[in-house]
Each structure stands twice: as structure tokens, then as C-alpha cells.
């Protein structure tokens, strides 16, 4: 695994408040799981950076090693790995995600 990719990923997740590694883009997700997380963030009115892993195999493989997490999407908030589609959906449905974002100081357009 290239160290450059790992430091690039680290840079992305630490310099952006909310980062979603996904298949496709937020405008055009290319996988149902990625689309689900993207929809949740859009619904909450969160500003986030989307990184399309399909555009770069180095990133696609690198992100799996970065957090020891085998699947994509992966959501990061302020450098912290939150989870994949299942965890994000579960947190969203329980209202936990909204609260978490607010606690982290990430603006959303929906009240917690």
C-alpha cells in the first residue's frame, strides 16, 4: 500500500469536516449503499466532501486499509470514522446521527 495514498486520505479526512468515500458522486451514486448515505446527508442538509473511489483504484483499496473496514461507503466526521451504510442508517433512524453532528459542531439544516 502506497504511503502517499494513506497520507492523502488522512489529509482529506482531517481538513474537511465531513467526508464521504463512496461509489459514484453525491449527484450520481453508483451503488445503493453509497446512495443511501448520500441521501441521508443531503436530507440533513450537511455540507460534505464526496470522494468517488471508483475514479481511483489506489484510493478504493487504500481507504479499506486506512480504517480496517472492507466496504464502501465510509463516512468520516472531523477525522473520525463513523461507519458504513448500515451504521449511518441506524444512527439516522434513531436520531443519533443528527445529535452527533450537532455535538461535533457540524451544521445541519434539521434540528436534532
Amino acid at each position, binding site marked *: 500500500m502506497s504511503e502517499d495514498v494513506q497520507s492523502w486520505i488522512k489529509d482529506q479526512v482531517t481538513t474537511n469536516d465531513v467526508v464521504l468515500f463512496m461509489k459514484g458522486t453525491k449527484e450520481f451514486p453508483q451503488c445503493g*449503499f453509497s446512495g443511501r448515505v448520500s441521501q441521508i446527508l443531503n436530507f440533513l442538509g450537511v455540507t460534505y466532501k464526496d470522494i468517488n473511489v471508483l475514479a481511483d483504484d489506489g484510493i478504493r483499496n487504500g481507504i479499506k486499509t486506512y480504517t480496517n*473496514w*472492507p466496504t464502501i461507503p465510509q463516512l468520516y466526521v472531523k477525522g473520525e*470514522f463513523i*461507519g*458504513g*451504510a*448500515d*451504521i449511518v442508517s*441506524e444512527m439516522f433512524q434513531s436520531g443519533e446521527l443528527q445529535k452527533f453532528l450537532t455535538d461535533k459542531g457540524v451544521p445541519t439544516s434539521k434540528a436534532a
Partner: protein
Amino acid sequence: MPMEAHEIERLIKEHLPDAEVLIEALKGDGDHYAALVTSAAFAGKSRVQQHQLVYAALKGRMGGELHALALTTRLPGE
């Protein structure tokens, strides 16, 4: 490469012997499953760590052979 539901269940139980595993085929194509895993091994662990335990049980198949496994983890009695 599709995987049979009972094979997923077997791998999880091999790694987490107390686990109750419920698997639902979402499309019947051997590739889209939902799994509900209940185990005392999840106690005190974050959701991410709970899922990582299940992924470890699946020995690298997750994200490869198993692209689409929707996963929910629970503690017994939860």
C-alpha cells in the same frame, strides 16, 4: 462470486460461537443479504467495532465476494 446464506452463518458462528444469526436473502441472487447478528461478544464495543468483529469472521469475503450484506448487530436482550 455468490455465497450461500448458510455459509455466511457458519463463518459467523465459527468466530462468535454464541451468536444468533438471522439471514435474509434480499434478491435471491446469492449476492444481496441482510444479516442480524446477536452476540454477547458485542458488549462494550462501538457499532464500528461490532461490525468489524463480524467482518473478521467473514475472513476477507466482505467487500469482495460479499458486496451486499446489510448488517445489524445486537446484544442479547436488546
